[in-house]
């Protein structure tokens, strides 16, 4: 199968080419939204993740073609834009926090699958750890790329990832017990 030139897709999308936009959306939307959810979870605003990603991609359309052509790797670049968009959204959210009523999380029908539960457990991690995990697994980025997106040293990204994996190990061990759901808050877990 012929490899898709994602930069070309971006350029075409920025010119308003519908099929390229559709393809790019299919390629990246779910991963970008998972990443946005991990950031927005800190404010319980995961339900806005799709909006945030759509806003981010609309911003991408405003980027001049010559700048898009200079993008080295499309994936990390898109994650960086979504991160900025999510952080901007969170700043706005904080201002509106008092008058906003959160929608109930998890509006999908039926019981969540074990994978869905694991994704939620990732969202419950401290956000700095959750974003590393989602960038690694949802985004498929290397530690070098993760450190580039988050503007942190590679070693910091790796240690955050290790901490997150350790928390998830504990979480999964406890899930095997009939206990209440685990919640991670500010880097510390609630005692059972």
């Amino acid at each position: 199968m012929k490899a898709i030139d994602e930069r070309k897709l971006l350029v075409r999308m920025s010119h308003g080419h519908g099929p390229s936009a559709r393809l790019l959306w299919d390629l990246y939307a779910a991963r970008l939204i998972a990443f946005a959810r991990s950031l927005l979870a800190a404010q319980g605003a995961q339900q806005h993740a799709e909006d945030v990603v759509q806003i981010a991609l609309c911003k991408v359309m405003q980027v001049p073609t010559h700048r898009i052509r200079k993008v080295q790797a499309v994936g990390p670049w898109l994650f960086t834009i979504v991160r900025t968009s999510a952080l901007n959204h969170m700043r706005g959210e904080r201002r509106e926090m008092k008058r906003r009523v959160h929608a109930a999380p998890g509006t999908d029908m039926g019981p969540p699958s074990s994978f869905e539960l694991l994704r939620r457990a990732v969202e419950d991690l401290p956000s700095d750890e959750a974003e590393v995990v989602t960038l690694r697994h949802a985004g498929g980025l290397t530690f070098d790329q993760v450190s580039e997106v988050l503007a942190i040293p590679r070693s910091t990204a790796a240690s955050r990832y290790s901490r997150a994996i350790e928390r998830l190990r504990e979480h999964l061990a406890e899930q095997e017990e009939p206990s209440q759901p685990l919640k991670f808050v500010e880097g510390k877990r609630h005692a059972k």
Partner: protein
Amino acid sequence: MPSKPTQDEVVRLLDGAYDSSRMPSYTGSEFLAEVQAKALSGWLIRGAVVVGAAILIALGVIGYKVATSPPALPDESPTLGDPGGGQSPTRVGDRALMLNGD
């Protein structure tokens, strides 16, 4: 006491959880509508440029034709200032003779 999964197991589970086939699908309707709007505006701009260029070319062609066309023939009917109604061949001949001094 339940056993903790190993790090490798957690990593494998995460890979599975974020596998594209297991991820929820999203419509992205607003974004795709935005793309369509951009495409439409692009076509409108291109259309306006083409129409504008066509108008300019047409005006140029008309202007050129007007500038290069021969002047309109003088009216043959006699006028008040020139009862003869323009120069007759005879009168032109007379004037030529006068100029030659013969």
